């Protein structure tokens, strides 16, 4: 056991020392996932990006991943381990890895770090990247507003962070625009991934009369419940239509592959620079699952028109006049929300009846 430990440490040290010396060796790319790659949601799509990197560069890269890494202090250990393992670039793919990633980046200045959906960029070797999911949420909100018959939309949210609140607001505004009577029931699951809890949440929402279920959690359980209950829902992160062929209207699909390929290429070429990007439908980071046949053709056309308008910049989901929930004005007529406010969003827009938990 002791010998093994020593050997392991020696190997790790050797790799760390050897990494700069053998530049022609495969570029080592590491990925940290918050859930299992088999979640068919968030972590799954990141892993699809990793596989695309392998397909693109073949033997020139070597990718590794660690799944189910809890957000918080333990992530620092895992990221450090990956850095010691000789990684050239590390993608950490959840919001909660911020402080840990910055700590590790300070200790390994030669390694490039990429943090998805993060906001802390305190070291020169950290990039931040995120997708404008609210653009996708606006499109599915529009569809929900038109498709609901009970005028009640159920929304399973994860944690009250700006990313999630922004999604609720975008979906609500779009639904409200086409259906003034629409109401949102929001359940906070306090988890990104807990199939049983998500299923129970979907059941509670349907019990309260919701006939459309939206989710900002990663499992396919809410869709299965929707399918059983004969109501409709939207997938999350990847195409989940296989889990609920009748109920799955469409879904936001995360497309990380082009960004990952681009960044790994930059490391190979030695042109990597820290960036802070927020890509949307336009750049292809936010995509959609196929539209269900249940959606009438004219609504599909409307949705596609909306997608095109968001892509070319002629429409922004947060365009005034919009008031905050308490009735105070936020955006004036024609005014468009700035990215800073969106990224720090901690308020609902006018019309949503529930309150954001602290």
């Amino acid at each position, binding site marked *: 056991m002791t010998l093994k430990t020593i050997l392991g440490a020696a190997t790790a040290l050797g790799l760390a020392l050897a990494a700069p010396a053998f530049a022609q060796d495969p570029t080592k790319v590491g990925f940290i996932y918050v859930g299992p790659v088999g979640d068919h949601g968030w972590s799954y799509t990141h892993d699809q990006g990793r596989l695309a990197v392998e397909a693109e560069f073949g033997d020139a890269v070597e990718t590794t991943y660690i799944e189910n890494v809890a957000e918080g202090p333990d992530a620092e250990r895992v990221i450090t381990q990956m850095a010691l393992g000789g990684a050239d670039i590390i993608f950490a793919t959840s919001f909660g890895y911020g402080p840990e990633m910055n700590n590790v980046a300070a200790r390994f200045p030669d390694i490039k770090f990429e943090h998805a959906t993060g906001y802390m960029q305190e070291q020169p070797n950290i990039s931040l990247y995120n997708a404008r999911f609210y653009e996708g949420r606006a499109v599915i909100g529009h569809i929900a507003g038109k498709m609901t018959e009970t005028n009640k939309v159920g929304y399973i949210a994860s944690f009250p962070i700006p990313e999630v609140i922004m999604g609720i607001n975008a979906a609500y505004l779009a639904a409200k625009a086409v259906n003034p009577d629409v109401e949102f029931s929001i359940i906070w699951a306090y988890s990104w991934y807990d199939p049983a*809890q998500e299923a129970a949440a979907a059941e*509670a929402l349907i*019990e309260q009369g919701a006939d459309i279920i939206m989710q900002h959690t990663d499992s396919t359980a809410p869709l*299965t419940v929707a399918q059983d209950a004969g109501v409709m829902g939207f997938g999350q992160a990847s195409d989940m239509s296989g889990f609920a062929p009748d109920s799955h209207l469409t879904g936001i699909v995360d497309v990380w592959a082009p960004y990952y390929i681009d960044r790994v290429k930059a490391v190979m070429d030695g042109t990597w620079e820290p960036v802070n990007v927020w890509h949307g439908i336009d750049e292809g980071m936010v995509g959609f699952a196929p539209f269900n046949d249940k959606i009438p053709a004219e609504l599909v056309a409307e949705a596609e028109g909306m997608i095109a308008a968001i892509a070319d910049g002629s429409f922004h989901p947060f365009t005034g006049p919009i008031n905050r929930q308490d009735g105070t004005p936020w955006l004036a007529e024609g005014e468009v929300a700035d990215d800073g406010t969106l990224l720090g969003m901690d308020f609902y827009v006018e019309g949503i*009846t529930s309150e954001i938990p602290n």
Partner: protein
Amino acid sequence: MILGSIQPAVLIAALMVAATPILLAAIGELVVEKAGVLNLGVEGMMILGAVAGFIVAVQTGNATLGFIGAAVAGGLLALLFALLTQVLMANQVASGLALTLFGLGLSALLGQSYVGISPPRTPKLDLGPLSDIPFVGRAFFSHDALVYVAIAIVIGVWWFLKYSRAGLILRAVGENHDAAHGLGYHVKRVRALAIVFGGACAGLGGAYLSLIRVPQWTEGMTAGAGWIALALVVFASWRPFRALAGAYLFGGIVVLQLNLQAAGVKIPVEYLSMSPYLITIIVLVFISSGKARGSLNAPGSLNRPFHASG
């Protein structure tokens, strides 16, 4: 009224369903601990049961066979634990934790080609006119068979421990294994049997998630239910009916807070959401402090290894 538009009958029905997986796992672990063994591998046995039950059900097209398969798989994994701790005298806590990690990994491997498939449906038990009784029918008599099986197991365990000779021996082994050994009882055999029973129950609980509750296979789908079951045993101070009440309480909190949120009732949901875990932590603090053991009715030989030479 604080419940707003929530129908109490629906709420009771939902909490019985939500509580069943942890109840099954907890009642199994209760027997294990009554025999003086602490098996922290409940989560691992549950998730293995979840995947094994799912695979068997999909392959045979029969949900009942799936549940049997889940119990067998949970029991087999528990047998491994019995081998480690009773024959090879490995540390129970470490072996249990290893069992959880092993179960999580093995289930992910086995389940790889089963992601995204729907299992055969488990029909609701037809209780005839009982289900038509207003309120009571919806709340108590509109479930699948496993909900009642779980309650039956609780009653069976209660009777077994309290009234049967074998139950008395099992308790003796758990309270004082040296004395039980002195009386000529096979401490290790009794413990091994209890461990396997615990594994089978945990496996059933896991399969309840993958075949009825969700119903689907996804990696890590137990999401900590096994740990709640462990805490529940202590919470119930090793008494079967308290475990039943505790499971319904835990399940009830989960369901109630979700329903309150869905109904738009303004309550501090974050506290309700974390309450099962808070109770778990408090209870685990209690279990680990020596003083509280006696007052909590903990089996005297719990987590103490037995060796005949001792």
